[in-house]
């Protein structure tokens, strides 16, 4: 009963949360200058610069090594795409790598979204000693370069016998200062304090409040954070290439192997690069709007 009562204002709040960009649109409406033809021309050129290297990756992946060494470079597709993709998948270890990367990035995304929402909620809506100091500390950790951790981590993981195992690259990135701050900024506005108080009056425990009030209100931001985290985790480079090798690689580790002469065929290397980028390109195709919104939201509030 409590929950059904709670869903009503929460649904409304969700609308209000989504209404932020709408307000911006109203502000700009009519005042924002219409783009002239010159703007479209310039933007088209820029869009080509953005997309051309990716398109050319696909073209190069559809050729063979000899053709790629000739001048002029190929400007249209050849017939070797599937052959090269298969070679990259089997021989360059991209097959194992894709599966590993899905496991690694998936787990990191789940952990980061869950823990960031909990911590973000605590920082946004709960009172506790040193909360502002701890929040400042959390933000401060973003300054620390990953290079400062890799030597001890490498030694410890070797001691534990975890070298080359996936938990080695999952555990250190299971939480995120950026994510915590992102969720905090969202929940400060999107989660009305009265909702929490109403649940409290009904005697709901903190876990119940989280499950029935916080998670529903945070859902849009959780989805966006999940997308951003997945992109970052999929593309993470420094620690994975130290911790893993070609026997059990993630996609980036396998691509690193390709780049340092593991396979000398450029068209296969391009097929590997294409394959390793494909999942994120699909994600951009499906959720590009949300990802763009997430980056812009993080910018305003951050």
């Amino acid at each position: 009963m409590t929950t059904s009562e709670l869903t009503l204002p929460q649904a409304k709040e969700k609308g209000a949360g989504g209404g932020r960009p709408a307000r911006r649109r109203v502000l700009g409406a009519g005042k924002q200058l219409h783009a002239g033809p010159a703007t479209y021309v310039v933007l088209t050129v820029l869009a080509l610069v953005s997309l051309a290297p990716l398109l050319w990756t696909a073209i190069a992946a559809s050729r063979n090594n000899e053709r790629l060494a000739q001048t002029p470079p190929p400007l249209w597709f050849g017939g070797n795409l599937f052959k090269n993709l298969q070679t990259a998948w089997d021989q360059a270890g991209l097959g194992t790598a894709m599966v590993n990367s899905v496991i690694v990035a998936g787990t990191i995304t789940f952990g980061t979204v869950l823990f960031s929402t909990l911590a973000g909620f605590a920082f946004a809506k709960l009172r506790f000693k040193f909360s502002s100091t701890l929040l400042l500390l959390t933000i401060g950790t973003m300054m620390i370069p990953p290079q400062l951790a890799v030597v001890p981590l490498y030694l410890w993981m070797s001691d534990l016998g975890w070298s080359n195992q996936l938990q080695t690259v999952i555990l250190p990135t299971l939480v995120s200062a950026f994510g915590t701050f992102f969720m905090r900024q969202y929940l400060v506005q999107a989660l009305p304090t009265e909702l929490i108080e109403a649940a409290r009056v009904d005697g709901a425990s903190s876990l119940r409040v989280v499950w029935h009030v916080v998670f529903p209100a945070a859902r849009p931001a959780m989805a966006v954070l999940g997308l951003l985290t997945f992109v970052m985790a999929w593309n993470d480079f420094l620690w994975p290439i130290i911790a893993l090798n070609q026997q059990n690689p993630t996609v980036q580790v396998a691509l690193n192997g390709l780049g340092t002469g593991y396979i000398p065929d450029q068209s296969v290397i391009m097929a590997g690069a294409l394959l390793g980028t494909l999942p994120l390109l699909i994600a951009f195709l499906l959720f590009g709007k949300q990802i763009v919104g997430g980056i812009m939201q993080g910018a305003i509030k951050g």
Partner: protein
Amino acid sequence: MTSSKQALAQTASSADAAPGDQPGAARRAHGRGTPPPGTSSWRSRLYRWDMKASPYAFIAPFFIVFGAFGLVPLLYTAWYSLHNVQLSGLDHQTWVGLDNYKNLLSSEFFWNALENTFTIGVISTVPQLLMAIGIAHLLNYRLRGSTVWRVVMLTPYATSVAAATLVFTLLYSWDGGMINWLLHFVGIDPINWRESDWGGQFAVSSIVIWRWTGYNALIYLAAMQAIPTDLYESAALDGAGRWQQFRHVTVPMLRPTILFTVVVSTIGATQLFGEPLLFGGVSGSKGGSAHQYQTLGLYMYDQGWGIGNLGKASAIAWTMFLILLIVAAINLLITRRLRKSQ
């Protein structure tokens, strides 16, 4: 310390810390939900305990994981930087004091890496941010299919460092590379990008620029959309044209965002690693056959996992951190000065 805490509490309205246990408990009567009537006292005690402990439980995962995999390693890195730690003989770690740092400061490769990091940092960050402001300005017009334009500009961000560098390495290849082929149309002879000094640095920077310009453009766009339109209206009433509006309204209003992106880009540039590593091909962690584009991050990897001197690698990591702290302090000073002058 207390004053800074208060200052923060003023800005972060929701995060006011309860001054003490007793007043905090008394204040809890205010709306914070009294336990439901008719429950036994252990239940209400449990409830109160839950109220007090849950915030800490919620933030605990972050601090535990960060502590274990961030903070403690950071301190251990400092410890290792004072020792001789070799990958080949991990059981023999001997105290060497500041030798690793002395060694570093007298190594020409360290200064070379520092210089390369700085050069590549500047030639990748400055054009990138300038272009990003321009692109954001264009995206801020009323466009048909505005979302599509934004997603397209962000697409390079979906490409990993490794994938992007592999592709660009092929585009920059000496014979048969796309870029040299395009340059021959304007009468430029093929450039050996990988072997040349400035050519390699330029190529590495171009990868960074390609991957990050769209991302930064979106950040500027968000800030531009938050600028109140009446500022533009009054500027227009004063007879300011489009360019003058951009110069005298948009750019000043973007100043905090520009500083933010400069800080973030500087942090990124200091850690630059994957692009020069993969662009070097078989020369790998040397950063080109003559170390032309070996950055600090790459130098650290080279010393640690190429040569196997983990103690020296730790010293490089801490030196990078100190450089970042100095950069952050300079940024803070500039921000303060800007704020005062306004």
